[in-house]
């Protein structure tokens, strides 16, 4: 409340004193509307009947609010796609954390010959920058001969192309900040290297691990290219693929399309505040 007295809000008196403030309020309002309209459109379309969706003049408020689209997509097995996305995101996140954490630990604690540490991290960045399409052909052949196509585990593995570089860079940053003396103390107390890693280092880098987990989950949830190339069996499709199939197969089944959109957006929207904080914290943390 005290803040408001120092910086008064947009009351009548201050508007007269500060036309600039009114202008700013108007600009923010317009931009918020531009942000919200497509979101509103997604939600409202998902609640319209199939007939209302294809009216020549779209309705701003649905005449009849219905959950029939949600029921229809659930009956059509969207929960299966939801589960596939969840499993892939979960699995690829676990792989990234395990490999990212052990790899980052080794890279910060041991100096490998021939400047391997720096070269490896730079290589990983080059991979991160590269358009994934460039590596897709050999990866397709590789995964095909390893019998990993049409498998969520294969997809989780190939997602490491995106998530592992990110995990390594975040965790190297965090692990550098963990003093070596703590490990030495643990070792003197008789803890083995594994116990030291799990009981001492892991809790101290919890922030980095959480950040890595959430960002790899978001990336995996959003990924489209490798899912398109690697998954053919309908029961294996992830949510983005299911949406793409809806777009290309049914020109105007918009109600159902948007119902899937709403269902697949809920988990991500819950993470908005976390993502906001994390991106605010710094530029190096945001390789995305």
């Amino acid at each position: 409340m005290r803040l408001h007295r120092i910086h008064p809000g947009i009351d009548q008196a201050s508007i007269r004193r500060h036309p600039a403030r009114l202008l700013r309020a108007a600009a923010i309002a317009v931009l918020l509307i531009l942000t919200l309209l497509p979101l509103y459109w997604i939600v409202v379309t998902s609640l319209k009947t199939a007939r209302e969706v294809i009216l020549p003049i779209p309705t701003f408020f649905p005449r009849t609010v219905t959950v029939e689209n949600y029921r229809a997509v659930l009956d059509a097995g969207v929960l299966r796609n939801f589960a596939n996305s969840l499993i892939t995101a979960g699995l690829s996140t676990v792989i990234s954390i395990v490999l990212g954490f052990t790899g980052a630990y080794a890279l910060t604690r041991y100096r490998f010959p021939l400047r391997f540490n720096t070269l490896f991290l730079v290589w990983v960045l080059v991979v991160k920058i590269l358009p994934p399409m460039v590596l897709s052909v050999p990866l397709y052949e590789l995964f095909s001969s390893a019998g990993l196509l049409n498998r969520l585990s294969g997809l989780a593995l190939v997602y490491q192309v995106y998530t592992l570089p990110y995990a390594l860079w975040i965790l190297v940053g965090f692990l550098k900040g963990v003093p070596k003396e703590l490990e030495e103390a643990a070792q003197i107390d008789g803890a083995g290297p594994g116990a030291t890693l799990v009981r001492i280092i892991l809790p101290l880098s919890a922030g980095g691990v959480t950040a890595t987990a959430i960002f790899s989950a978001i990336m995996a949830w959003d990924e489209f290219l490798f899912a398109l190339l690697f998954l053919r069996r309908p029961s294996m499709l992830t949510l983005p693929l299911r949406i793409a199939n809806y777009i290309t197969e049914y020109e105007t089944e918009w109600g159902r399309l948007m119902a899937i959109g709403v269902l697949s957006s809920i988990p991500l929207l819950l993470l908005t505040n976390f993502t906001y904080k994390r991106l605010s914290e710094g530029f190096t943390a945001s390789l995305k």
Partner: protein
Amino acid sequence: MVAPTVGVVAFLTVYPFVTVFSNSLFEYDYIAGTRTFVALDNYRSIVSDPQFVRSVVNTTLFVALSTSSQTIAGLVLALLYYERFRGRRIATTITAFPMMLSTMVVSAAWRTLFHFDIGPLNVILQRIGLGRVGWLINPDIALLSIVVVDLWQWTPFVFIMLQAALRTIPREYLEAARIDGNGTIGVVSRIVVPLLGPHLLTVALLRTIDTFRLFAKVYALTGGGPGNATETISYYIYREAYRYFNLGRAGAASVLAFGVIALVAAVYIPRLLKEHP
């Protein structure tokens, strides 16, 4: 302990890299299973392929328009949100929403918004007497429409980064500049932009990297069309490899794309190493 990590990275990147390079030197038909060494013929043939040239032009345009518009829009937003006002927290959260949606959801929504006959945008335009626009079906406009979608989705990212950067500028600098008689535009151009310079460059680089790989939006919104008006380099590689099974030409296009991104990396990586030694 580093072995499994290095192993996975090598498996996923080193072998594919070598293969892409070697594929680009062969006439390689995946279906027929034939692989003949042709040296640089694939390169010669794609650089004289009008479709490849078009995909390079499209990608360049898309990267330039998207990155610049998002950087400017993100900066404007960050400046608008600089002073405290009632409801700033909730407004900030709402502003961040678009980048939290998955790309396919965003594409699906805009595909319906852009629909020629019953999409709300055209209905509104017609209502106010401007006539319909072929957002995704007019070859002169389709790429710009994808720029608009990317702008809507990713400006929030630039906004959040620049908002954080703006907090590093001491408030007194801005006040002093005002007292010296600068208007808002003067303060922004003389103080804010120069001081944010490195941050603006970092954000623009991150957006360049992301927009350069544009594929999913094109797939969902236009399929590369009309004609090949929205075909990007990634889409060109996709078509050569997975529709025509011409892995040699796909490989050559990939190597050229890698060459471009290596230039970006040459700017970006030293900056990152300096910030994060």
